[in-house]
């Protein structure tokens, strides 16, 4: 019986170490994680912040009360409500961030815990083989050790560290996208972006920070990518006109020209501003006519220095459109340049 005692000691030591690990480490992490109360599906803000509401007294309820009392008031009150809404967003965002940290930490901890348990089991079994004398006992422990190692290999294969990292990265990407949307909306008045809109976005911000959501999102994206790769593209005519990528400068110029034309159109509709608008359009026509290629096109449309303002406006828009459809985006850019030069009074 003597040779069995060291073996028993090793096994007892291994099991004790395992129990300590599981009992003292796991609950601390598990306890910390709970979904923020603000997203309790059974209660709305009124339920949470009035009577014996779960969130009374908290800053959340203070901001919510300010928001509720000012949301439908005058312009000044609506500004106060927008401030309160933004404070509520920051408050809940902090809670969601904390939930996310605890959630991801728990996932990482569980992985590390599992690996440590396997380490303890393997080391214990290897030590027991070294200490035990009986051949049969060594054989049995050896088989058991082989089983533990095979299980570990299988688990590692299915839940590799890299895969976990990818999923966490996906969660970070999704969270950043939702947060960017929320931050942009924080500039809007409460009439366009209410606290309930913000709360729905924050709820999405909470859910995109979970493993299941990230897995779904990855599955959907990879599915779409595969579909895109396999998709047979529709064949179109060779006549399809290709337009080059617009540069930032061209885009700014087009936008400025657009604002000018919209203003001129409005001024033409008003008896008082029509003469000035007509004169500006005639100036634009004169500017266009300095370009030989554009002059051909304005003359083809029968435009002259005495043409009606509305006719000039319609012709400019028509010439610019024809230029693009003929694959001459450069001409369209020159027209925009002429419009901006005149409207901005550079000439």
């Amino acid at each position, binding site marked *: 019986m003597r040779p069995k005692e060291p073996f028993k000691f090793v096994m007892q030591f291994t099991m004790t170490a395992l129990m300590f690990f599981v009992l003292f480490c796991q609950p601390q992490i598990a306890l910390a994680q709970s979904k923020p109360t603000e997203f309790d599906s059974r209660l709305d803000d009124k339920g949470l912040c009035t009577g014996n509401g779960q969130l009374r007294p908290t800053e959340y309820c203070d901001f919510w009360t300010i928001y509720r009392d000012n949301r439908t008031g005058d312009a000044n009150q609506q500004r106060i409500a927008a401030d309160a809404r933004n404070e509520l967003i920051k408050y809940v965002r902090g809670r969601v961030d904390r939930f996310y940290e605890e959630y991801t930490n728990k996932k990482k901890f569980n992985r590390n815990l599992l690996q440590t348990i396997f380490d303890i089991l393997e080391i214990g079994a290897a030590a027991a083989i070294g200490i035990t004398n009986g051949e049969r006992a060594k054989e049995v422990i050896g088989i058991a050790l082989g089983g533990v190692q095979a299980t570990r290999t299988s688990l590692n294969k299915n839940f590799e560290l890299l895969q976990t990292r990818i999923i966490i990265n996906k969660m970070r990407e999704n969270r950043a*996208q939702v947060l960017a949307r929320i931050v942009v909306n924080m500039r809007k008045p409460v009439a366009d972006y209410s606290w309930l809109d913000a709360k729905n976005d924050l709820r999405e911000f909470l859910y995109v920070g979970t493993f299941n959501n990230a897995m779904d999102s990855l599955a*959907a994206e990879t599915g*779409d990518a595969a579909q*895109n790769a396999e*998709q047979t*593209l*529709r*064949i*179109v*005519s*060779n006549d*399809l*006109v*290709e*337009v*080059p*990528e*617009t*540069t*930032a400068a*061209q*885009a700014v110029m*087009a*936008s400025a*020209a*657009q*604002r000018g*034309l*919209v203003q001129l*159109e409005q001024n033409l509709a008003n008896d008082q501003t029509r003469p000035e608008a007509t004169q500006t359009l005639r100036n634009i026509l004169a500017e266009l006519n300095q370009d030989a290629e554009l002059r051909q096109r304005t003359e083809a449309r029968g435009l002259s220095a005495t043409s009606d303002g509305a006719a000039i406006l319609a012709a400019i*828009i028509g010439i*610019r*459109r024809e*230029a*693009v*459809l003929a694959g001459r*985006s450069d001409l*369209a850019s020159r027209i*925009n340049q002429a419009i901006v030069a005149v409207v901005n009074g550079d000439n």
Partner: protein
Amino acid sequence: MSETIHTIGFPSSMSSIKALEQTCNTNEINLNSKLKSLDTVQKPGGKKVTEAIFVEQVSPAGLGQLTVRKTTANDGATFKGKAFILTQPVDVSVFRTQSM
């Protein structure tokens, strides 16, 4: 009255979604037409292009104010389409912001 449709192609080498947004907005203005759809297509010779279909407008007001983003679920886009970005097909969502 039937709509007047204009179809043009954007190069598959489009450098980014932001560049696609600029190109869509500039062409809305230059064509005086509203962008209706974006799709990935191929010419008979095999050349890939992004097909953009526009609907002609009478007034220039409200054009050139599009935001283009990579599609996400339930993003409330005005319309969804596909476009080549750096020669790769990408699902995009197009949003029309408030008119001027």
